[in-house]
């Protein structure tokens, strides 16, 4: 399933990044967001998801959350 369907306060392991844009995939990679890595949903705000990857918090939008398959 995609990360956007995930539950808050839950950790998932990333299966794959289904982004159409290669550069975005590379960028996510440099943040440590790639297959096999852990991502935790902290909260859902407005239409954005707050996630924790490695030791940082990020805000990502719905489209990006849909591209992250867990």
């Amino acid at each position: 399933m995609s990360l956007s369907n995930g539950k808050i306060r839950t950790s998932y392991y990333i299966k794959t990044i289904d982004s159409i844009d290669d550069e975005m995939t590379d960028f996510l990679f440099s943040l440590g967001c790639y297959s096999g890595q852990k991502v935790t949903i902290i909260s859902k705000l407005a239409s954005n998801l707050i996630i924790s990857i490695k030791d940082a918090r990020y805000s990502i939008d719905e489209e990006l959350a849909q591209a992250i398959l867990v």
Partner: protein
Amino acid sequence: MRIALTGNPNSGKTTLFNAITGKIEHVGNWPGVTIEKKESKVKQSLNKNKEDLIVVDLPGAYSMSPYTKEESITRDFVEEEHPDVIINIVDSTNLSRSVFFTSQLLELGIPVVIALNKSDLTQKRKIKIDNEMLGQLLKCPVVSTVSTAASNNGLSDLILEVIRVGKSGERQGLPQIGIGKLKNRKADAKRYEFVNEIAERVEKRIIDSAKQTRQDKADRIIAHKWLGIPIFIMAIWLVFSISQAWLGPWLAGIMGGWIDAFYNFIAGLLGPEVHPVVSNLLLDGIIGGVGAVLGFLPLIMLLFFCLALLEDCGYMARVAVVMDRYFKKVGLSGRSIIPMVISTGCAIPGIMACRTIKDERQRRTTAMLTPFMPCGAKLPIIALFAGLFFGDNGWVGTSMYFMGIIVIFLGALIIRKMNGDKSKTHFIMELPEYRIPSFKRASLSMLNRAKSFIVKAGTIILVCNAIVQLLQTFNWQLLVVADSAPQTSILASMATPLAVLFIPLGFGIWQFSAAAVTGFIAKENVIGTLAVCFAITNFIDVEELVLISGAAGEVSAVFGIGAVAALSYLVFNLFTPPCFAAIGAMRSEMESRKWFWGAIGFQLGMGYTLSFLVYQIGTVITTGALGGGFVGGLVAVVLMVGVVSYLMIRGSRKTAANPVKQLG
């Protein structure tokens, strides 16, 4: 010896840069505050042997493969300009991500020294990092630093280490990453494996960073779907109220008194013997004009102090999250809020900050629209009219701020329709932790702004005011204009034809059009020129009076316009093209002639249309009749709206012809 500062966004590079050079560059806790490289010498107290040490502050990057334009500055610099030593600033609370970039830097063959920054925070978070082991594994020196602390901050150790490494000339050993012949993503995956292993061995965490914290709870309220916007409005209202209505006018009153005393002092020195042309030039042109602008200094300083506090505490990244939802509807993203926030200080760095936006159309659109935010130079105009006509209400500034955002919103919508581009973009932004804002940093930022404001007032504004004074003193025969016929001056005869255009906007008076034109040189000139043109020797008096007591009647009688026209004039000055310097910045960021001229036309049209609407609708509401020049103005506005609508329709046809493409 050239030393490059590199590291992830928000790892504290610029703070460290300021700490080791003694400079006061703008610091912020979101990516994109530093967008250009900055160079300076290491300050003497850290460089006892007086070595030739130049430090280069670079924009933050997460890796050597740049994602946005400003990240590529960093890569290009370290790859092409071969600094002698790289200081890699690693956020010690986020080792597991930062070392990814470190490992890439180590492979460049340039000596690297790691500054394990924010090491004061690790204790608080119960994180233990084994510096020695980290140094052994990466084969480079590691120094713990706290660049926000005044002493015991590790900075002198850092510099000593840098000098040692830079002089030794030995090549640093490469860490064993084991990439071998792997390429691209596979190589990166291997690299991350290495990074993860290092983090595991070097770092001991007691608290899982993915656990919910009080900060996350705060985020739920501050960046809430519905509460987010009211909270943002309240925060900005508070900023404007403190600086423009509560504390600011009181300070401005004191300062106005000083300027007044200075004016009288000079007037006394000159005495009655000095030729009136000379004394007028000196008193009304220079002291009066510059003084009128400088009188707003306390308001501006307070505003920047408050805004710096707001930025420093980590709030602005949350604003980007809140606004993303709305900006997405018009084809921008939450990232566009950053240039806008910066533009509240000055549009030039704001426009330059557009580089952090990946998508070209979004970047150009933001560069075109971000000057609509009320910048520091437009602030005196707002403050003057708020003081004169609206009793110094904090709401005037606040509403101009949000009107700026709304106009940007509308503008983006129109541009997207014209452009016919329906591409979608992804939004990702790191959320820095909240922290107690530093009064020291806010004061430095305030003093920095104050300095540039004073310098500008003392140079360009002074010259402009003197020229305006001369142009209105003489007529075309170079004779002194009679007091009874000010409309015969060179200035009046140049500005009068232009003033005709402004009749439908309510301020078809030559003084106002002259001020609007000098405003393109620098927006502060609007106030200076008005002060000079209306030859109100007691302009500062009046201003002081009004700033304190709100006695508007007298001044508005002198100006010859009412509150509605004043508001329209305010709107016109805020939403027309910015000053020439900002226009220049716009041109270089847009990298397209078509976009650039389109932007100028769009801004002019936007300013004209908005003030037309404000004046005419306002006049109907207040007097029940239409304002002067309605028909002429309507024709102009309808023409402009027509052109824009035509372009929008053409744009949407283009979209219909092309399938929707999706961009990252």
